[in-house]
């Protein structure tokens, strides 16, 4: 990574708001590109963040996405006011999803979000 300082920020995410779903991750992607992170890393971080953002929108009333881009590390923290995940191991399985039907009709609920975050995170 060619950057020499740390960039930090956060996005507030409102649950249930599909009209703006993905805006935070899209903006983070633009920020990463503008500070000179290489394309492949940007793609991985954007994908993981997008999945976290969607989960906050689908499963919780509200949440916050924090990012810290520093030399050698990009850290994304997703916090929400939802019920949390009871059985993490189960939720991590490919295809496991409790998404309601209307979410499935919007193109989500494939149960690949957490596996996706794992695949793309360090």
């Amino acid at each position: 990574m060619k950057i020499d300082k740390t960039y930090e920020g956060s996005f507030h995410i409102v649950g249930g708001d599909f009209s703006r779903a993905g805006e935070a991750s899209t903006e983070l992607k633009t920020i990463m590109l503008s500070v000179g992170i290489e394309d492949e890393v940007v793609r991985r971080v954007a994908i993981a963040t997008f999945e976290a953002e969607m989960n906050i929108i689908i499963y919780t009333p509200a949440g916050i996405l924090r990012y810290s881009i520093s030399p050698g590390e990009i850290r994304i923290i997703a916090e929400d006011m939802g019920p949390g995940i009871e059985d993490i191991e189960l939720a991590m399985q490919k295809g496991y999803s409790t998404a309601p039907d209307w979410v499935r009709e919007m193109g989500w609920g494939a149960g690949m979000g957490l596996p996706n975050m794992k695949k793309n995170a360090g």
Partner: protein
Amino acid sequence: MKLKEIAEILSLKPLTPAEGPDLEREVSGAYVGDLLSDVMANSEDGNIWITLQTHVNIVAVATLKNLSAIVIVNGRMPESDTLDRAVSEDIPILLTGKSAFETAGKLYRILNARNLQG
């Protein structure tokens, strides 16, 4: 064309029904998609349905639309209630590790050769 022939050519693994899956049924054409409302609206009688949805509702859709079988792609395994329902409704579920694109691509050629459509 018989479901059995398609299963053989594409190396699909039948999961249901448990004893002697009924692969003798005729396939009229194919449908690819993961949005249940679309499948309800656009699939046709006797279609083989290619999807990566594993949710129990896929069986209800296949039953209502009189589809010949469900093919679940990308190595995904259906949930246990999906399997139970498929057995009781007599809807064959077949699995493949291949993608929807590849499965559809190969099946298109096979069905086209027999003048069957999607």
